[in-house]
């Protein structure tokens, strides 16, 4: 992994794809902000949705992320690494804040999880086309992710659903590379086991 991640961070340092847009944003250019939002909303929203498993909360959090970025963009230049990584860090910090804030509510919600499982087991039999299978897998992964601890969950989401390099995840989480690798490894194994318990067979 070392050669790959090293090349990734060098690229980010030398050719930052968002450098010009960020400069324009700092100058107060409205269309630059628009470009930034159009380019990154999907990524931020998906991270929030995968982590919280609630579209409503994900929308609110995405808005919160961009507002935070709007207010703190000036501090980005001092941080090293790519803009996308910085943005992911901001998102991740808000997600962790949100997770701590809503911990008590989730204890009462966990009972509700049992209901949709029964319904979705039948859906592939009725409509086994490609799009439906993908949607079903997506929701199965989504439910299984919620069983993981937040540490393992965020590591797996960043690596396998957001496609970040190990070095980037290291920057986002602020933990050593060994810890990142170990969390991703344990997260993947645990996720596979949870899916097996849910009755999802490997294909």
């Amino acid at each position, binding site marked *: 992994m070392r050669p790959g991640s090293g090349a990734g961070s060098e690229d980010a340092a030398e050719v930052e794809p968002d450098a010009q847009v960020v400069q324009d944003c700092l100058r107060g250019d409205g269309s630059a*902000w628009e470009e930034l939002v159009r380019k990154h909303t999907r990524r931020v929203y998906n991270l929030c949705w995968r982590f919280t498993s609630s579209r409503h909360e994900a929308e609110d959090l995405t808005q919160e992320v961009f*507002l935070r970025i709007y207010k703190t963009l000036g501090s980005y230049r001092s941080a090293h690494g790519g803009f996308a990584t910085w943005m992911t860090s901001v998102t991740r910090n808000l997600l962790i804040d949100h997770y701590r804030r809503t911990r008590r509510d989730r204890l009462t919600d966990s009972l509700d999880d049992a209901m949709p499982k029964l319904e979705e087991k039948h859906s592939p039999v009725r409509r086994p086309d490609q799009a439906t299978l993908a949607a079903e897998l997506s929701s199965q992964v989504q439910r299984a992710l919620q069983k993981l601890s937040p540490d393992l969950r965020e590591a797996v989401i960043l690596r396998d*659903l957001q496609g970040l390099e190990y070095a980037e995840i290291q920057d986002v989480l602020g933990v050593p590379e060994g810890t990142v690798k170990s969390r991703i490894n344990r997260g993947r194994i645990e996720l*596979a086991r949870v899916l097996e318990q849910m009755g999802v067979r490997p294909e």
Partner: protein
Amino acid sequence: MTWNCEQIETRLSDYADRLLPADERKYFEAHAASCARCRALVGQVTSLLSRMHGLEPEAVPTGLERRILEQMLGAGKKQAGWVAWLGWLQPVMTQRVAYGAVTVLVTAAVLSQAFGVDVRQVELRDLHPANLYRATTRKANLMYARGAKFVTDLRVVYEIQSRLRPEPEQPAPTEQKAAPGQTQGPEKQEPRQQNRADESFGNYSLLAFTAGLAPERSIR
């Protein structure tokens, strides 16, 4: 060299990401071939990863980008100037609101007249609470003085009337009593009229005195 189950679990991600050197890969696969439990686990994880990497990210909900931009650039417009600042008023600008505004203005004009604030020459210091209070007190005192003068005038008129009227009423019965005789009528009436004129003159001067003083005293 052979690996145990624990080593397989630890290096599973490296294997799946194809990051194991060739020799370690050989040890890994050798153990997996001999251990059914590890083989199943490796199969599950690699299958999960290949399917997860194929998942398309969710589409952005409709309107989310617009809301984000409104939220951000809405905050930016505040710095842009008065035009942006007044922009929020546009939906409020209806006919009904305009009528309401006119009514409020008229009321304010009437009230300012009542409180002695001249709208044509209004100055900032006129709006000072102390000045407003002073003007209002002055107006109230003037109004009270006018009212007091009016009441006093009425009283004067009433007193004059009451002094003048009872006289013909009182002698009326005596005249009626005397009427049947017709003997003392003209001779006795003359001195009585003389007396009444003297009396009236005295009353007038007294009343004129009080009427002249009373309003002045009230105004001051």
